[in-house]
């Protein structure tokens, strides 16, 4: 492109539009917006069904194991800290820190899933299942349907997160992320924290109320 001399007299073009957020991060945030709406439809349905049929919902503690899940919540919060620590390590180009904290996050995430699986197993044994058939626990089958769908989809998100974290760790062992290219970790972290955030809300609504 040739540039005539007259150009300098022209009003400047507004160079490089955009917001000061790199694509991957922006993309992940945008994706999380759709996740917000996804969980709105699930959690919203929970709230609505519950308020329509309070009789189907006994006090949570009578069916669910609150102390166990409170502990599990704590685990997930810990995993958020380790995740953010991995990010902090990436920022200061601490290769070892990245790997250690990522590994810790994976461990905590997997542990969370293990506890959830254990909880499901116990509950199923007590006649608290997702389907109408065979539901014998307190409350009504609506309780089981909503409970397993909410927590199950959250669990699926954790599971995908753990898989993605393993992939991130694999790349970290190959020397990624510690040359100022911390983006991958930051984006991974956004997803992971979001999943944590959803759990905070789910835990409150499903277990404590």
């Amino acid at each position, binding site marked *: 492109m040739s540039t005539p001399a007259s150009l300098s007299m022209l009003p400047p073009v507004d160079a490089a539009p955009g917001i000061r957020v790199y694509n991957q991060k922006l993309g992940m945030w945008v994706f999380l*917006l759709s996740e917000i709406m996804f969980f709105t439809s699930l959690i919203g349905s929970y709230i609505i069904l519950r308020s329509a049929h309070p009789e189907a919902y006994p006090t949570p*503690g009578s069916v669910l194991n609150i102390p166990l899940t409170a502990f599990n919540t704590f685990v997930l919060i*810990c995993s958020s800290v380790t995740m953010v620590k991995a990010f902090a390590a990436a920022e200061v180009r601490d290769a070892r820190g990245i790997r250690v904290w990522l590994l810790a996050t994976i461990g905590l995430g997997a542990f969370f899933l293990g506890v959830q699986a254990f909880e499901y197993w116990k509950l199923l044994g007590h006649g608290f299942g997702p389907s109408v058939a065979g539901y014998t626990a307190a409350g009504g089958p609506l309780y089981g349907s909503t409970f397993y769908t909410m927590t199950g989809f959250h669990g699926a998100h954790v599971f995908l997160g753990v898989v993605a974290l393993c992939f991130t760790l694999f790349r970290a062992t190959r020397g990624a992320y510690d040359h100022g290219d911390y983006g991958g970790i930051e984006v991974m972290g956004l997803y992971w*924290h979001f999943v944590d955030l959803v759990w905070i809300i789910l835990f409150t609504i499903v277990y404590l109320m």
Partner: protein
Amino acid sequence: MAIDPNVGANLHSPDMPADATHELGAAHPKPRYMFIFGVLAVLTMAEVGVAYLGLPQRILVITLVFMAMWKAGLVAMYYMHLRFEPRNLIFLVIAPLPLAFVLVLAVLTEF
């Protein structure tokens, strides 16, 4: 490109080494992750405590929702460092919240 050496740079910028500036660097104080963690842990314990207090349902719900929002806010603000992002991004992120609110509220009046 004679106009401005940086014209169009943002198209490819994610490939540039992150030396120059970055959002969390010197410009902002590092969030104190461990401190936030402490708050989250305490709030979780407090939530469980409140749940066992045997408060009337309405007060219980309000308290718990408030605490959950607080926790969620902490995670979003600090761990997802929304606080340190450009204003545009924050607007973008809170955009769907009113929609979620409208959906749940409108349908709630139904049942």
